[in-house]
Each structure stands twice: as structure tokens, then as C-alpha cells.
């Protein structure tokens, strides 16, 4: 029986970079095949060539044994290749059905399409009301739309790009059931992820890329997560080093009865949030995306003002200050969106350092920017956080996601803030870089800073945080020491069950 997909000697060159260097691997029918690698290892480039978004410079793609050229995604779909992207392309104001209809290559009458959608949904247990507006759906539900859209073309190969980064543990399990069912019916799945335990749980084989080259194709069930991670980064993996039994200092950051206004139609504001973080403590905020995390970060960073005493450091109210005022008083923040929010893609890294570090590090003298100081500081961030960039003059947009995140985290951490608030610190970042970022956060806490980590990655929060709370529909659950809460409990809180007393008015997931 021929392989479903066979890549031979695939090579893709970009100016200055060899994104894929002679990559060869094959996927059998009905196989769940993992594609593993650090950021910039060439995974995305490789799947883009399979899906026809890019063309290889050399090499051959065989489909069911016959050589093919995939000039564009439409041709890929025609062959039977479906893809679910990491970032969804959905119109929030339209319904599920309308969104799917817009993405179809062939014009299908809406009644017939709805019947087919319902078929696919019941067949795979992807339950969803086709007439609901996308804006009212959770991220997990939105992903289901993308999966349904891909399944409608009866794919023989489904490419999933980091599908679980935004799901609750329960949603991940549901997704895996769907994927296993698909595979059992003979559909091959190419699964891109950083989460090694998921790959061990789900995949039949794994291809590991590093620096555009194929490192190994292995059976993940025979490997440990650690051994795969080490193949991926090409070196031994460091554990987070932290002192056991350290004590916390005084209350550093105090948030009391913080609420924000609903800014846009689809914005989820925070509602009466209170918590305190002590010096040396890492406070985790878990929750499914779109439950008020963005508003919480903006309110803490100063992009949204609040009552004076809703946010205080060492007892001094900061609620009325803007981001610059708060930074001067030691509160730095890193928002979730890297490009366009935490950094300006068209600007050099050096100019991006001016964005948040200009006052704390004296880069401004009499209204003029000391570009030498900015360059020196940027060089230090690049060196200390092992950012892969040509230098301070590289534009932020030219860095891969993980490297840009390392730069942004470094830019804030090296300012030695007394309070650091970060959202999704390792989102889309590979294991090696994530470990480095985690270690830097732990070190900053050890030096006496109070840290708030807002994340959807439970494993990250459990590994990193001393205290955990869950945000759901803008409300924060009571904080508990991480050791005392189980994954199941957090999962339920993420789904909106706030304990017995509030169970009646909770919104089921």
C-alpha cells in the first residue's frame, strides 16, 4: 500500500535562511504523524508547501504514490488535504453556517450545506449550532468550525497546526477523540505541536525538525517527553531551578474590586476582581481565552485606567496612571499579542526597546532619544535571552514568534520591575525558549518581584506559579496555592463552575 503523503528531499530557501533542507518523511494512511520542532525549525514552511501556500525549491511531493505539484490551497483541497490553522479565519459577526459557506470552493445551496454540516457534526461528535453567531462561541467551539470546514471536503490528510494551545483539558480530550476517530477511518493526520505529552498520547510516529533539517523520525510511545525535547533543541533540557521552601515577602501588588467597562461589542470586561501578590510570589491566572484576560492585562498595565485604589503597589494607588506612569513606579507588563501590541513589527529591536524601557533606563534626555543607550540595552537583551536576531537593528517583524517573545520578555525582565504582569509568556514558543523564559521569571521572583502570569496553558501555570486563580466571564475565582488544586478542579472553574454556591447562575461550557 503506498504512503498517503511522501516528501523526498524537500528544500526551501528564503533570503539568508535555509528553511527546509532536504527533508524526507512519509505518512501512512490512517496514521497520526507528529511534526515537532522549535520555532524557526521549518515546520510551518513545510506544511505550507504541502498545503500549496508555498512552492518547494527542490524535492518531490508524492500523494498516494504519484508525484504531484500543489500550486495553491485550492488544489490541495482538491487532492484531499485539509488544514486547520493556529489562527482562525472566522467572521465574528456571522453565523457558523455563513462562515463555513464563505470558505467553500464550490457553491453549495445553504440547505444542502447545512445538512452536510450536521452530518459531519454528529458523525464526529463536534456539537455546534450552525445558526449561532461566532462571537458568542468559545475558542474551542470556534476551532470546531474550522475542523468541520476541513472535514467537509472529505480529507485524506488533515493538517492541524498547534490545535490545543487555546483549549481546556476537557476540550483537548474531545479533540483527541475526534482525531482518533478520523484516523480509524483512514484519514492521515499531520499534527504540529510543542506539547510533547500530547504527542505521546495521540501520535503514532513523530518527525523532528531542527534548523530546517530532519533530525529523527521516531515512535513517540517509545520515547520520553524529555528525550524528544532534547532531540528538538539539540541539547540537554534544563529544569526550572528554584529554591524550595522560600518564603514570600510583604504584599506587593494589591488589586481590589477592579472592574472595567465593556469596550467593544465582543469585549469581555473584568468584573470586581480582587487579589494580592506578595514579593517573591508568582501568581497564575488560568482561564479559557476570551474570558476577560485582555481586559485584566490592559487594566493592570495602564492601557485602561481604573479607580485610584483599585490597583496599588506597596500601598500606593496607581489606578489613575497611564502605562508610562506605572512603569516609572515599577509595574511592567507584557500583553499577549506580540506583533502590533507588545512590539512594532516595522521598527528595529532597538526602537522597540525605546517603547517601554525609555524612562526606567534613562534613554530620554531632554526629549531626545539616546539611541546609543537603546542599542546597548537591546544588545544585552539579545545576548542574555539568546534571541536569534542579526542585531539591535533587525526589525521585530523579521524575528520568528518565539524569538520575538524572548526579546519582549527580556526587555521587560531586564528592567527589573518590582511587579511584572505577563500574558501568555510562552504562547507558540518552543520548549527550549519556554524553559528559558520560565527560568527568567522564577529568577525575577526570587529577586523579590511580584509576578502575575495570565495563561491558558495549565501545565505552564502549574509548573511556574505559587498561587493560582481562574478567570471566567471576567470574574476571578478565589486564589489557592497551586499544590492544593487539581487539574480537574481548575478545568471545572475554567468552564465556569465557581463552587456550589454559584453553580446555579454559572454558564455551562
Amino acid at each position, binding site marked *: 500500500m503506498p504512503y498517503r503523503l511522501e516528501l523526498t528531499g524537500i528544500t526551501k530557501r528564503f533570503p539568508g535562511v535555509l528553511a527546509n533542507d532536504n527533508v524526507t518523511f512519509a505518512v501512512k494512511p490512517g496514521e497520526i504523524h507528529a511534526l515537532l520542532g522549535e520555532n524557526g525549525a521549518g515546520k510551518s514552511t513545510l506544511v505550507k508547501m504541502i498545503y500549496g501556500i508555498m512552492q*518547494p525549491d527542490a524535492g518531490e511531493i508524492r500523494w498516494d504514490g504519484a508525484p504531484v505539484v500543489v500550486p495553491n490551497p485550492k488544489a490541495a483541497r482538491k487532492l484531499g488535504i485539509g488544514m486547520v490553522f493556529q489562527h482562525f479565519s472566522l467572521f465574528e459577526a456571522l453565523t457558523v453556517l455563513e462562515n463555513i459557506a464563505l470558505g467553500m470552493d464550490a457553491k453549495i445551496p445553504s440547505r444542502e450545506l447545512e445538512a452536510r454540516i450536521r452530518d459531519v457534526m454528529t458523525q464526529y461528535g463536534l456539537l455546534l449550532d450552525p445558526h449561532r453567531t461566532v462571537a458568542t462561541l468559545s475558542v474551542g467551539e470556534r476551532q470546531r468550525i474550522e475542523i468541520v470546514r476541513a472535514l467537509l471536503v472529505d480529507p485524506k490528510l488533515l493538517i492541524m497546526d498547534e490545535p490545543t494551545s487555546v483549549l481546556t483539558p476537557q476540550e483537548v480530550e474531545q479533540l483527541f477523540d475526534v482525531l482518533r476517530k478520523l484516523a480509524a477511518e483512514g484519514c492521515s493526520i499531520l499534527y504540529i505541536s510543542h506539547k510533547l505529552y500530547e504527542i505521546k498520547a495521540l501520535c503514532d510516529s513523530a518527525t523532528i525538525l531542527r534548523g530546517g533539517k530532519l533530525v529523527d523520525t521516531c515512535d513517540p510511545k517509545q520515547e520520553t517527553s524529555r528525550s524528544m525535547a532534547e532531540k528538538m533543541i539539540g541539547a540537554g533540557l534544563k529544569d526550572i531551578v528554584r529554591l524550595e521552601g522560600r518564603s514570600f515577602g510583604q504584599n506587593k501588588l494589591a488589586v481590589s474590586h477592579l472592574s472595567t467597562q465593556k469596550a467593544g461589542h465582543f469585549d469581555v470586561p473584568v468584573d470586581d476582581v480582587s487579589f494580592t501578590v506578595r514579593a517573591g510570589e508568582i501568581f497564575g491566572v488560568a482561564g479559557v481565552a476570551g474570558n476577560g484576560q485582555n481586559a485584566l492585562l490592559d487594566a493592570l498595565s495602564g492601557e485602561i485606567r481604573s479607580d485610584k485604589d483599585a490597583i496599588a503597589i506597596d500601598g500606593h494607588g496607581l489606578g489613575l496612571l497611564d502605562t508610562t506612569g506605572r512603569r516609572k513606579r515599577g509595574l511592567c507588563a507584557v500583553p499577549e499579542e506580540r506583533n502590533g501590541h507588545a512590539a512594532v513589527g516595522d521598527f528595529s529591536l532597538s526602537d522597540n526597546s525605546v517603547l517601554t524601557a525609555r524612562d526606567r533606563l534613562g534613554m530620554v534626555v531632554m*526629549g531626545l532619544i539616546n539611541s546609543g543607550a537603546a542599542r546597548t540595552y537591546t544588545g544585552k537583551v539579545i545576548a542574555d535571552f539568546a534571541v536569534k536576531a542579526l542585531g539591535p537593528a*533587525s526589525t521585530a517583524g523579521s524575528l520568528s514568534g518565539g524569538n520575538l517573545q524572548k526579546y519582549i520578555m527580556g526587555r521587560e525582565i531586564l528592567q527589573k520591575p518590582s511587579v511584572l504582569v505577563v500574558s501568555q509568556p510562552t504562547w507558540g514558543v518552543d520548549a527550549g525558549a519556554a524553559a528559558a523564559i520560565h527560568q527568567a521569571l522564577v529568577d525575577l521572583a526570587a529577586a523579590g518581584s511580584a509576578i502575575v502570569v495570565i495563561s491558558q496553558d495549565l501545565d505552564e501555570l502549574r509548573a511556574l506559579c505559587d498561587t493560582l486563580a481562574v478567570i471566567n466571564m471576567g470574574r476571578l475565582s478565589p486564589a489557592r496555592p497551586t499544590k492544593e488544586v487539581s487539574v480537574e478542579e481548575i478545568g471545572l472553574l475554567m468552564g465556569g463552575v465557581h463552587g456550589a454556591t454559584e453553580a446555579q447562575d454559572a454558564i455551562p461550557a
Partner: protein
Amino acid sequence: MQFRLEKRREPSQFMLYATPVAAVALTMIVGAIIFSLIGYDGVGAVREIFLTPLTNAYKWQDLGVKAAPLIIIGVGLSIAYRANVWNIGAEGQYVIGGLAGTGIALLTYGMTGWWILPLMVLAGMLGGMAYAAIPALLRTRLNVNEILTSLMLTYASVQLIYYLIRAPWKDPMGMGFPQTRLFSEAARLPFIIPGTIVHLGVPIAVVVGLVAWFIMTRSVFGYRMRVVGAAPHAARYGGFSEHKTIWLALLVSGALAGLAGVLEVAGPFQRMVPGFPTNYGFTAIIVAFLGRLNPLGVIVAGVVLAITFVGGEVAQTTIGLPNAATGIFQAMMLFFLLAGDILIKYRVRRVVPQPSQGAA
């Protein structure tokens, strides 16, 4: 064979400077073809418009005088456009600046003193600022698009000229002509090169460009403008409020348009006349973009557009080209420039279908 656009990893520095040159070249080529097709001497028209002003030394002074207001306004617009604040009404701010200067000149009529000109300049800048403050207020308070308000205010400003020079400011000795009296000596801009029409406004324009370049590249103000334009969300994160930036952008561009207005009225015109609005404020939009929103580029672009103005006049007399031809050439230049801009972020690649062969 097939062509397609591929995104560059880094924006091309070469294309950043090559596309304005290419836009000018394409304008000359296409212009020659178009005017040949409609029965003029196309090549001659291009020669007269683009080359004669440069080869004829006598025309150089005209270039300087035409370029000065274009550069001053263009610099202001380049600052506002950097911040994505689309002040389209520089013409109106230029007119109000000119009127404010005229007001001072008429108030001080017959007086002497070194302070009159600086006072006029100050009044002109404040006038332009005040007129630009209206769109700023409407935008920040009521979220009204500044493109519409600033543009519409231009037409209101022109009516204000007509009113003032027909009634309260009318020259009492003017035999009914709708114009003010000729400014007294102290309210006229001095000529800096004897025997020419080159006035003080010309070096001022160059200084404005240089100072603006320094501020835009080195100061927090310039950084603010650039970051707000490039990524508004990141600007807020960096502590730059959007409203303050809109105000700054409109006030600065309004002040510079007003400055150009007062220098024009005190320089070449020396009185307020109905023909004072000469579309410098609109042409400066092309200047700002042709100059890559970079004040140094704006200086060069101001000269290029001045060439088309001066050359257009030459071509009217020598080839009989209609006056509108100048506008056509200027518009083509902006068109080619904006079209060519895609090459800064993208490259054109020839896509050759890959032969499917066994051995790779």
C-alpha cells in the same frame, strides 16, 4: 510562466528610495505617450516640464520660490501622516495662516519696526494651528473623520478670503478691485539674493525640513508619531495616548501650513488677493508621499513638484499645453508612487511550474 508577489523578510531599503525615482521616470514616459496620443508634442511636453526648469538657469529662482511653500507644508503633512492622521486640509490652514498674517500687516500698516514680520509669522502659525484644531477637536471628541472635516474647512477658508477682501479689508485706493492694499515695507519678506525673486521663505523652508528631520529621527515626539502610525495598539502600550497624538499631529501640520501661508502673502504676493489659494496645500500631499514622509525627502520632492509647476508654465507658452497638464503629471506621479510602494514589502518572483521528475 507566471509572476507573483512574495513577502520580503525585511522591507527593502533600496526600493524605498528607488520607487520615487521610478515613479518620476514612469510619469515622464507615460506622460509623453498620452500627450502624443491626444495630438501634442508629447516628448517636447515632458522636456519642457521636467528639464527646461533645470537647464534654464533663469528659472532656478522660480523653482526656489515655488518649492518653499510646498516643502514647508509637505514637512508638516509628513509628520501628521506618519501618525496616520490624515490632514487633507493644509490648503485651508495655509489660507488662514495667510489671512492671519494679512491681518497683522493691515493693523500695522504704515508702521515700521523689525517686530512686524516675526509677529506676522507668529500670527500665521497660530492661525493655521487654530484652523487645524477644529478637525482635531471633532475627531477626539466626536470621532469625526479628520479627512472630511479638514477638507471641507478648506472651502470655508476660501470664502473667508472673498468676504474679507471685498468688505472690511478692501484696499480703499484699489478702485473696487477685491484685494487688500499692498503691505508696507516692514511687512514684506526681504529678498535674500539681490536682483532675484528669492525671498527669505526659501532658506526658512530648508531649515524647517532639517529641523523636522532631526526631531522626527531623534526625539520622543518623532518616536511618538512613528509608533502611533505603525502600531496604534503598541503606542498605547508604550504610553502614548491616541488623542494627544491626533492633537499634536494636526497642530504641527496646521502651524507649518500657516507658516507657508504667511510667508507667501508676505513674500511673492505682498497683499491678499482672490488668487491666493494656489493649491499648494493639496500639492504638498503629493510632496509628502513622494518624499517618503521623511522631511529630507520632502525637500527633494518639493523641488521636483516645483519643477512641474514651473515647467507647466513653460509648456503653456512654448507648446500650448493646457494648464491642467501640470495637474495630470503631478497626479500620475502620486499614482505611480503609491502603486510602486508594494515593492518595498514584496518582491516579484517568476513562478516556473516545477517539472515532476524522479530524481531531485
